[in-house]
């Protein structure tokens, strides 16, 4: 079937079989491989993208469902070759280690910030609960979201005994 979709502001038209997920559509048919597969079962959030303003697991959405929709992925987060404030905060707060969950994490954080410009720590935890990260233990990610929303946490570099 034919899919027309706007991704990160650009229009795409692709012919895909009905069973193809949005995740495979992005990675294999559009060539945007920044969105990752972590489990393929909607559990880990690595494939989070923003579909018409809402964060979704791309592995649980069929490409057929996005015909006519507007999508945002990690590839659209930096603008004109410059990281967004959210990305800069992730960098400053060391909110990335292996980086595999990062695209989904940034997209979830982006969706959260857009519906709640000043989320509390509890609200950030709530908003990112669906995104697994096995490396960071989440704390520096939460700090990055606070910082990106103008609520910088105190610099918490490990104290020296």
């Amino acid at each position: 079937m034919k899919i027309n979709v706007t991704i990160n502001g650009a229009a795409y038209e692709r012919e895909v079989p009905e069973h193809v997920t949005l995740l495979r559509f992005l990675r294999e048919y559009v060539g945007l491989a920044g969105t990752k597969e972590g489990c393929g079962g909607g559990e880990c959030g690595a494939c989070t993208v923003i579909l018409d303003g809402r964060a979704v697991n791309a592995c649980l959405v069929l490409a057929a469902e996005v015909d006519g929709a507007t999508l945002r992925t990690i590839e659209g987060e930096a603008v004109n070759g410059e990281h967004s404030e959210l990305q800069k905060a992730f960098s400053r707060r060391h909110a990335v280690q292996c980086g595999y969950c990062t695209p989904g994490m940034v997209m979830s954080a982006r969706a959260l910030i857009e519906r709640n410009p000043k989320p509390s720590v509890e609200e950030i935890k709530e908003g990112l609960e669906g995104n697994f990260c096995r490396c960071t233990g989440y704390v520096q990610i939460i700090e990055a979201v606070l910082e990106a929303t103008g609520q910088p946490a105190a610099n918490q570099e490990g104290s020296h005994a």
Partner: protein
Amino acid sequence: MLETENRESLRQVGRSPERHDIEDKLTGAAVYASDMDMPGMLHAQVKRSPHARARILRVDVSRAERLPGVRAILTGADLDYRLGLYVVDKDILAKNEVRHFGEAVAAVAADTLVIARQAVDLIEVEYEVLPPILTARDALAPGAPLVHPDLGKYSYIEAVFSPQPGTNIANLTRCRKGDIDKGFAEATWIVEREYTNPSVQHVPMETHVVIAQWKTGDRVELWTSAQSPFTVRDLFCHAFNLPLSNVHVSIPNVGGGFGGKAGIHLEPLIACLSRKAGGRPVKLQATREEEFSLLPCRSGLTYRIKTGVLADGRIIAQKMEMFWDAGAYADYAVNVTRASGYSASGPYEIPNAWVDAYTVYTNKVYGTAYRGFGHVEFFWGLERHMELVAQTIGMDPLEFRRLNLLRPGSITLTGEKITEHTGDVRKCLDSVAASIGYGELTAEEKAREARTGFKIGKGVATLHKAPAMPSNTATAVVVKMNGDGTVLVNVGLTEIGQGSTTAFAQIAAERLGFPLNKVRVTVEKDTDRDPYDWQTVASKGLILTGNAVILACQDLLAKAYELAGQALRANPCDLDHDGEKVFVRHNPDHSVKFSQLALGYAFPDGSGIGGPLIGVGRYIAQGLTNLNKETGQGLPALDWTYGAHGVVAEVNPTTGQYHILKIASAYDVGKAINPELIRGQCIGGMVQGLGTALCEGYIYDQQGHLLNPSFTDNKIPTTKDLPDEIECIIVERAQLDGPYGARGVGEHPMISVAPALGNAIRQATGAELTHMPIRAEDVWRAMNRHDPVETWAAKTPAGSDRTIHAAK
């Protein structure tokens, strides 16, 4: 490398610049193996065993072969190569018998993933199902069926390991210190108990991915998500008897490893598929379910500890028996057994010690390396046991630990003498105890108890670990100067998220005296380009590769000075440099830019001297020895990183549900190269340790089927599982042979989280937990069992009111 460096005037080391590898990871531009496609690439799928133990009677691939688009099919009968890191016991595809649920029986390469899946479904395998061996105890019982009847015929590393043919014992590590019988005879108290934990999955967010191409002339290209490019290459060549120069391993960004991607895994199978398919590249990306059962896990452990204590609270004797449930293949489990064996008593001094650590084959998913390399598992038992002993003898658990901690002059289990430079475990323990307000509850905490009806408890636990690695583990680093005076650092150590790339850039910039933006460390690894490094494991990268970075920078500078000396007609000993140029110290205007030296210097008349500036640094572990197989005596530890956790937990005394109010962790890192990176390791490792403590673990049914190979049934911590408060404390007692005094801390934060939590729950409720993970129902059961501590006391002082129990 400490003494040659001035620690007071450091410009790069000790700061927290942003990560070196972060730009691409934040934009989606970072390429992982799962993102790679090769021209003409086929897709692989694996047929896996639905049984834990079964004889393979027949494999029929005829229907799969007829499916259009299928390019290669392999079964165990087609391949005659065995793999193994230390004991060579694993066929690439199961032959004759399957030994665990999920084991690979056949594999297909096809034009598309969909066709490969269809083809796998069309392969028919007929099994004769056999009763599986599912516990170490059953495997060790007299007359137990043998998981590996041919164990006596397998090759293995004889200097280090001791398989026991005719049994299910893949390795036995012994350690003997002092006179255990005499020690127990002198003891006033003897306390004995057993502790258990199941297998656990690493859960890197990126599953294992391999692309392999077997080209003409037996030249092989491997693109893989592995931790250790050179080990993949070397073990691959060993299995196929190929020259090392024939095989080229490339590793792009790696989406987490945690030990699960150490060693070699799917590379040989996928390479064989490529060979069968006429040399077309073949890709396999493990599904999450395959990550749980086709790929290995962490071994389960049963740890029995018997401790003899003098009247004053000093430990006089300790007998330690470990039974590692290695699953179907030895892989890393034999070395986990070895490393745990020589570390088994933790950072405590035990004058008379006796360790027997067994690696036991069973019909379960096999165990491999996992962050902490056995220490997460055995410290669960050890630090719960220290708590129990303290309770039994009527001493405060913190004081009991402090009394028995290693100190300068102490002798470890293997005979190593601890010095003041080994690290400061006492300071780690005291720091976390202070941070959580160990001891009495504060007025605020008491008020909270009264308000909620919940019980608050505070527990501590210590930890230590040394790198588990060959005694002659080596690495090399190459620093190349570009024509503009910037430098490229080639290291063979893989960036799997730990941040070493950034730390090495800081170390290089520090030693060169250059600004950080003039130094780039390669992120992707390539065995044809990068210098050798043994493996990205064991928390040894910072010390070994860090030192090699320093040496490579010194070499580069020496060559630059030599060339500058000729260019400036000056003695190199009179030269100095900054980030731009080399100059004569007593005449700074007389200088030459690095950019003029980088590719060789040209005099004004055009004549050239020197050549491109390349610095080489080599470093090898020094002074280590293999351990005596009978006594365990020797020097296995490059360094010891010490640490401790303190936990404040709140427990519902009716249901056993609990909540962690605070975790404080302290580590003696020697010198913090990048404090924010360390904080990332500390919190990340601690939360991974919380996963082990709270909920993670393999669940099998009685036939040996793995029941929870998914995130639905095998949870890992999320943001909602974080403790309310987390504190990371850095202790810096310099490591004399560490780069700027640093030592590794990659694995350590995961160790001893569970027992610190278990001890806090015990202090809150009296629940005697001996099994992890600690689920609410486990706390509930333990709270309601009311086993008095005397249950585990085998000897008590004469006249003690506890003698009744000792008499039984």
